[in-house]
């Protein structure tokens, strides 16, 4: 594979590229689902190809091909240079890359069990036993499960001399129980909604999730929601479980800190950001106890944003994003680092596959756990009147990442430190900085989970990327609850 990259780099530089990198990627995936006692889908997929990214006339060009023959690879590299020269027809300034020391390296996701070594029969048996548990509960009208495994092997070579071979594994699993009755569809999901929990791990993740053990409880909650009261409307203290908080971090911290958004590069599609450059090290993003990092290193955990090197050969790093409430860092790349006065990339450029241009993506953007011991039950006991909300049901935020509304699958009203009743259709809304400044308690490390978001979309053509978000249940004071149902 290295030879393929060398063919590409040679042609690109011969044609006048001042910089070039080549990625050869081999991806394999397996997806299994069940629905109401039957296998819903069973599929394997592989995709192999190469791409060349070049700077010529100080502008970018990118070309990709499935054909790995020498003639095709060389034609693809030449095409990338031609495209770069077309880009140079419409530019205001030259592209500037922050320096990066070339590196030769091997990196593989630490994993105990290769997920592709587990038989399909075993996987299906697991999913059907979860399905059976859910459908044993009267009132369940639809039960869905999923199991997913991915392996991606990449060879990255650059004209500056980098030579990096990286292999990443990820796994994901989850399920949802639906109950339709009267004029209402209610659902509950585990470990979280929209595909469950995902991490960069092997099959051991599936063993850790206690999937079967929780299936009946989840189904019972879905049915019980039909008899629950509507979540009240008004201003309340709310406690978010760690999976919902993970998504809150993703949408209201992870996206606005992407430097390409801040610089207007995503203005036509994903949007811009309220975090203009003047806010770096001046904006009070959250309360004093808010500490957020973007950490791609293995020591942060096996998140979907964990890797050895990003897709322009920069080593994984930890960037402080919010430090004791103060906004302190963006997600950056070699091209954008200079705009915030940095002389090195933050190492966040990633591509969905061999045929996509790497772009700034969240790594593991995590809220660090509280320093004093605090369990969820202790946090509830410390709350006079509030709503505990669990598991995302809907999410929406404006194109500057400032005004949001989230809905959850289930809520619990808390009075005088106790859960007094289940409530259905809980939702909350707010303004990003007001919300994070209202945070007054974060549970400690034992309650902290590194969640995976496997479906983050960005870019044109759109690229779907996995990101990681560590969070522990936390409390926010005086939040607007229930406006989603106002007027309807």
């Amino acid at each position, binding site marked *: 594979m290295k030879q393929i990259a060398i063919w590409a780099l040679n042609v690109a530089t011969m044609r006048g590229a001042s910089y070039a990198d080549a990625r050869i990627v081999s991806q394999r995936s397996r997806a299994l689902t069940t629905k*109401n006692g*039957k*296998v819903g*889908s*069973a599929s*394997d*997929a*592989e*995709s*192999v*190809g190469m791409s060349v990214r070049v700077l010529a006339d100080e502008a970018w060009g*990118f070309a*990709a*091909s*499935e054909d790995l023959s020498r003639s095709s690879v060389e034609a693809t590299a030449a095409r990338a240079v031609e*495209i770069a020269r*077309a*880009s140079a*027809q*419409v*530019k*205001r*300034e030259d592209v500037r890359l922050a320096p990066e020391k070339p590196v030769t390296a091997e990196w593989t996701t630490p994993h105990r069990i290769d997920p592709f070594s587990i*038989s399909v*029969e075993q996987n*299906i048996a697991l999913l059907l036993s979860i399905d059976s548990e859910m459908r044993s509960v009267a009132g369940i*009208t*639809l039960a869905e499960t999923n199991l997913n495994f991915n392996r991606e092997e990449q060879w990255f070579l650059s004209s500056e001399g980098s030579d990096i071979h990286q292999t990443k594994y990820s796994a994901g699993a989850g399920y949802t129980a*639906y109950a*339709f009755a009267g*004029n209402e*569809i209610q659902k509950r999901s585990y470990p979280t909604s929209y595909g469950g929990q995902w991490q960069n791990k092997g099959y051991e993740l599936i063993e850790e999730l206690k999937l079967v053990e929780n299936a009946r409880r989840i189904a019972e909650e879905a049915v019980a929601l039909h008899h629950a009261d509507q979540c009240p409307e008004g201003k309340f203290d709310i406690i978010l479980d760690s999976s919902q908080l993970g998504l809150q971090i993703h949408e209201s911290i992870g996206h606005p800190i992407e430097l390409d958004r801040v610089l*207007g*590069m995503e*203005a*036509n599609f994903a*949007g811009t950001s309220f975090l203009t450059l003047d806010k770096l090290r001046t904006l009070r993003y959250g309360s004093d106890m808010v500490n957020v990092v973007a950490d791609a290193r293995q020591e942060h955990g096996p998140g979907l944003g964990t890797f050895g090197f990003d897709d322009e050969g920069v080593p994984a790093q930890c960037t402080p994003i919010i430090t004791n409430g103060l906004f302190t860092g963006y997600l950056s790349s070699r091209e954008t680092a200079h705009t915030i006065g940095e002389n090195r990339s933050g190492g966040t450029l990633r591509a969905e596959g061999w*045929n996509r*241009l790497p772009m700034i993506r969240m790594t593991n953007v995590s809220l660090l756990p509280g320093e004093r011991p605090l369990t969820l039950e202790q946090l509830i006991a410390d709350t006079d009147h509030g709503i505990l909300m669990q598991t995302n*049901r*809907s999410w*929406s*935020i*404006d*194109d500057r990442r*400032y*005004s949001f*509304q989230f*809905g959850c699958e289930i809520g619990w009203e808390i009075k005088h430190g106790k859960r007094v009743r289940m409530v259905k*259709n809980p*939702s909350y809304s707010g*303004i990003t900085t007001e919300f994070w400044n209202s945070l007054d308690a974060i549970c400690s490390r034992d309650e902290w989970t590194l969640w995976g978001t496997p479906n983050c979309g960005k870019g*044109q*053509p759109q690229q779907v990327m996995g990101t990681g978000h560590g969070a522990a249940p936390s409390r926010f004071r005086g939040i607007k609850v229930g*406006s*989603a*149902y*106002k*007027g*309807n």
Partner: protein
Amino acid sequence: MLTKNQAGDIFDRIKRLSVADEMEVLFSGGKFALTRFANNTIHQNVEEENHTVSVRTVFDGRTARASTNRFDDDGLRRVVESSESLAKVQHPDSDLLPMPDSREAAGSADGGVRASHGRLALQDGSVPSRHFASTAAITPQLRAEGVGQIVNVAQKHKLTTAGIYSSSESVEGIFNSRGLSNWHTQTLAEVSITMLGADSSGWQKANSPDVANLDPLRMAETAAQKALDAAHPAEIPAGKYTVILEPSAALDIVGFMFWDYSGMAILDQRSFLTGRIGSKLFGENITIWDDVAHPLQTGSPFDGEGMRRMSLPLVENGVVKRVVYARATAERMKRSEFKDKTGPIEPTGHGFALPNEMGEMPLNIVFAAPQNPQTLAQMIASTERGVLVTRLWYIREVDPYEKMVTGMTRDGTFLVEDGKVRQGIRNFRFNESLIHMLSNVEAMSEPLRACGEESFDMVVPAMKIRDFNFTEVTKF
């Protein structure tokens, strides 16, 4: 680009490698190029060529799928082995039907095609050609020249611009061991433009198989004018307003209900149409078809099993008439408790590739032309106080049975007073039931081909709607 003959040869090679009872091969892919600009600069510029072959095998009622983009002998052998080994360990599926042959896939002679939604029916139900050599021939230089013109408009108005200019040439094909072979080629050119001022923005987007139908300069001027008109946005309180949704905004919000026009969604009891088919759910003026043959539509005329897509009325004068079906879903529905409450039950050629858990969906939505179409200007002129919306964003479902969705306005939101566009206003969040919304449509324009970012492309009108529910206003 892969040709049908080449695909046929690959299918024959795969057939020789397989020992399955039945076998089906899907082909997809092509060439895709996109020039992306921001801050009046081309900052990303990409091109790719990729084709995928996807093999479904069947053994004694068991089926599974594997796909690859490796067409050499090893790659094809691996994909057949993967598909067969996955299929063999499945449980037999009593709902699985034998693969369709060409005759069954072609459907009935009239195919349901009728001209009752404002277009002339093609007598044989076929789709017009969607492949244009001029679109396939677009080069990076041509796209750069187009972007240069858009940037010139931005600079003329002291704005900055961001957007895309893309072009593609793609194939979609299906062959099966019962002799079916269908092939579709298509081109598509697309332009999307955002113009940004200091505190405002404007947006336009369009696409077509024929690049001659796109006018990037006109789109740039329109987007720029919106950004200029929206400058210094005022804040007005949230509440219920008459809104005028431009076609892109209309399609992005109504698109969220079409997953539910599916036999499988009824069987799963996850559709908001459960128990409501045959009832008048929307206003008298709402008639919606699914019509792949419509001249403004795109896409292939066959579904994931190779069945010809029928053209069908989904809603007539506000009454939900029917949903669409894959072959197996139709058979299941005929045996189900819902069989007398779902309208006509027959395979309609809207199935996804098997195996899948979603069944089917209508993807070629066409709103019928209203009896008295109004232009956008007429809708504005007849509005005492309302909100004109260019574009909606980040729409998500809040309540699945009431079909309530939330989202934001974006890139050009205006206050309309006394029949005139008064000024730009800060963006709103809405929480609105689609049932409520489509019951309150006061006026519509002639439907046109529109595209957005939240839903798939449709033929849809601009809509003037009373009592649209804005629940919050943002700070810009």
